[in-house]
């Protein structure tokens, strides 16, 4: 009888043990060795639109396509270009010709071998006028392209073109499935075939996209067997799915990062990461508007804005101040560059020099007119709205009256930006890994619907931009970009405000994540879940 009881107790104890283990895997087991298996479920707000990457311009499509396809080159964890489908590449002495040596033995997911023919096809279809793509511009700089043998691809340019290398990071498409067909009607847009670490499995519209590990991937089989991209359009719902275990990874908002994810329980189950995102937010001035044509005015406004206060108020500290158009910590950015400091007395002095005097009501007046303008920003971005509101408060203190107008994206573009019909706006730019500034800052890009919509024209900046893009020598380019930053601080065409942080959170059963300047996803194929912790 005694033995019987002991056995019962033992059974109960082991049952309890099991329960505890499945609830808190980390509590009982330390990370085991890398193992194959499990499913990484990533939450996303937007659904991909088209998995042929040259036809899509939304980030969700490129996120998924990036796992299925490869480019010739890619950025490594330190944002340096390295070979991907190309084993190596050479730039001719005159900088005009780039020769890519392709890896041998790479297979498309359907088993056909990858060759230079695929690269040639991708180049041709991208520049084909019938292809509705947003990515033809860089490829159009190519004067001639040739594929002398299946493992060599060569392109020649009219003049040395530094962004060319980055442009060959474009995902290469399978020519054997697309050549001679209308790419816009190809089934590949919903059932892609690539060379990448994951192969496409299924796409259930509005719900999820599922990828399986490519066991024959040329950089090694990914440890994670399945990658599921779950579409959850509402951020609060996504956060609850995360807590309930329905997804393993998402991007947190600053409030979630700072206030809602610090419980012990949460930190045992999840790992939070934080690093600067590749984007910045700015207050842009319409330089054609008489109010802002004087650079002292722009300098005064920047001096009146406390950027730290904005980061604290709008981002809860999850960001850093911006002083130019480059990503902090990358080679093009000069970390020693100082922007105009927060100094309201300096603004008042500069404004007085420009003829604006404060009257008894504390308002700035020139020729009997008060200093007032409207800041536009797009609807649906709470952080930008808060940013505008904090700026409004600060400018009020030096006597400038600011109104804020939030406009739906389509109207903002067509009614205000394209027509140059604005005074100032709070907007953001994505920072590309290649620091070329031509499209946003060159004076030739100030036409309607072009990106230099604030109308910034500076001959020296033009020259430096052209110089910077016409050499492959990083040292020389760096000098150009350092000088541009100095000029931009002096000219203040924008008040550069901040670089927000990316705040991803991943279930802690995933190991092998190593944050780097490129973020965390660059080594996805090395992520793994130890055998005992695998959930799916």
């Amino acid at each position, binding site marked *: 009888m005694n033995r019987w009881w002991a056995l019962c107790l033992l059974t109960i104890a082991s049952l309890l043990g099991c329960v505890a283990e499945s609830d808190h895997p980390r509590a009982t087991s330390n990370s085991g060795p890398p193992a194959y298996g499990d499913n990484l479920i990533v939450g996303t707000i937007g659904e991909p639109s*088209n998995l042929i990457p040259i036809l899509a311009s939304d980030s969700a*499509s490129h996120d998924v396509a990036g796992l299925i396809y490869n480019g010739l080159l890619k950025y490594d964890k330190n944002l340096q270009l390295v070979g991907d489908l190309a084993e190596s590449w050479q730039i001719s002495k005159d900088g005009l010709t780039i020769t890519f040596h392709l890896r041998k033995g790479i297979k498309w997911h359907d088993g056909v071998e990858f060759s230079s023919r695929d690269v040639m096809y991708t180049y041709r279809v991208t520049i084909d006028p019938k292809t*509705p793509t947003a*990515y*033809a511009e860089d490829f159009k700089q190519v004067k001639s392209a040739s594929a002398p043998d299946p493992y060599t691809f060569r392109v020649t340019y009219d003049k040395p073109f530094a962004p060319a290398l980055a442009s060959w990071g474009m995902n290469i498409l399978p020519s054997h499935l697309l050549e001679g067909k209308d790419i816009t009607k190809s089934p590949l847009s919903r059932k892609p075939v690539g060379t990448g670490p994951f192969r496409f499995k299924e796409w259930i519209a509005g719900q999820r996209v599922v990828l399986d590990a490519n066991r024959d991937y040329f950089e090694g089989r990914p440890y994670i067997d399945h990658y599921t991209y779950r579409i959850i*359009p*509402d951020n609060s719902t996504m956060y609850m799915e995360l807590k309930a275990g329905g997804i393993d990874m998402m991007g947190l908002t600053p409030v979630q990062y700072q206030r809602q994810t610090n419980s012990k329980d949460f930190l045992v189950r999840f790992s939070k990461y934080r690093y600067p995102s590749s984007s910045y937010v700015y207050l842009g001035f319409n330089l054609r508007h008489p109010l802002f044509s004087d650079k002292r005015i722009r300098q005064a406004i920047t001096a009146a804005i406390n950027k730290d206060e904005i980061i604290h108020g709008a981002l809860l500290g999850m960001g850093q101040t911006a002083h130019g158009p480059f990503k902090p910590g990358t080679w093009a950015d000069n970390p020693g560059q100082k922007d105009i400091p927060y100094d309201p007395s300096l603004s008042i002095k500069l404004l007085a020099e420009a003829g604006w005097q404060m009257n008894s009501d504390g308002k700035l007046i020139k020729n009997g007119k008060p200093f007032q303008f409207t800041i536009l920003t797009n609807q649906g971005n709470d952080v930008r709205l808060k940013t505008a509101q904090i700026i409004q408060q600060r400018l009020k203190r030096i006597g400038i009256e600011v109104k804020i107008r939030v406009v739906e994206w389509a109207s903002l*573009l067509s009614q205000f930006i394209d027509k140059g019909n604005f005074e100032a706006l709070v907007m953001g730019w994505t920072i590309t890994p290649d620091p070329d500034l031509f499209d946003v800052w060159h004076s030739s890009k100030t036409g309607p619907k072009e*990106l230099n919509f604030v109308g910034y024209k500076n001959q020296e900046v033009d020259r430096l931009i052209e110089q910077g893009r016409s050499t492959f020598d990083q040292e020389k380019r760096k000098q150009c970009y350092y000088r541009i930053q100095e000029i931009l601080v002096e000219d203040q065409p924008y008040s550069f405000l901040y670089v927000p942080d990316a705040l991803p959170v991943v279930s802690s059963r995933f190991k092998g994540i190593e944050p780097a300047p490129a973020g965390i996803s660059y080594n996805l194929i090395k992520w793994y879940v130890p055998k005992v912790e695998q959930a799916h």
Partner: protein
Amino acid sequence: MVHYLCKRILMLLPLMLGITLITFVVIHLAPGEPVEMQMAMNPKVSAKARERMREFYGLDKPLHIQYANWLGRLAHMDFGRSFAPDNRPVIDKIKERLPITISLNLVALIIEFGLAIPIGIMAAVNRDSLLDKGITIFVFLGFAVPTFWLALLLMYLFGVKLNWLPISGLHSLGSEQWGALQRFWDMMKHLVLPLAIASFGSLAGLSRFMRSTMLEVIGQDYITTARAKGLNERTVILRHGLRNALLPVITLLGFSLPGLIGGSVIFETIYAIPGMGQLFYMGVMARDYPLVMGILVIGAGLTLVGNLLADIAYAFADPRIRTGKN
């Protein structure tokens, strides 16, 4: 009757044409273009690429030609291809979402009517009693509480805290390998919260409507007569009262027909349900003209058919309408 029917059906055609014309103009009046939405703020897009895109979508042609082209395609039941980057046929995009929305709305409609009618009767019969007031408070609470807020609270309670119900979506991961019954049960569990939220909100209007028509009927002479005959209260209310009170409610049901294909954006977004509401909203935001027009045309068509059915039902019920004599 046949004459009346023919007249009604013939009248639908110009009406439909007018609807398409107005919607076409209105959607094109909205600032912005699909090409803009896809390409604006992208440093890699040149003006030429933009022009090419406009040509690709036929946006470079004058508006009346665009309309004629669109109408010509519609005559062959071709809704065209979406202006979104996927460039898929509009009808495919609608088809993959329509079954979900229709079945969800149908179930919600049944729940709504199934609850609102008894609630309304109970409130009317026990007019001004504690029960009536309690019901009023309850249904107005449902009417007044913001859907998204209640939805999130319920999600947190049942999904995160109690872990009884799934939070969002339609199926559990890996459910495709399960048996049919288990899959169905899984889907039902996913639908409990969305359906509860969807019906709770619209309970108020319907049950108040039912209550007022019922009250009106109860005051009629024939109810007094029925009571005087010595019928029991149950028969009086359910047979003599309800039948008459239901007529206007049935009309209301006819009007709900087009609502079946329309989804709610907020509720679909919160519960991550891939329905028509989201599709339409995204279409409008991206200025995806063919998609928006396609959904509107189907919606308008259903509205017209719903009205027609309601009229025919009336005609059957009321000879004065049928013969056109008053």
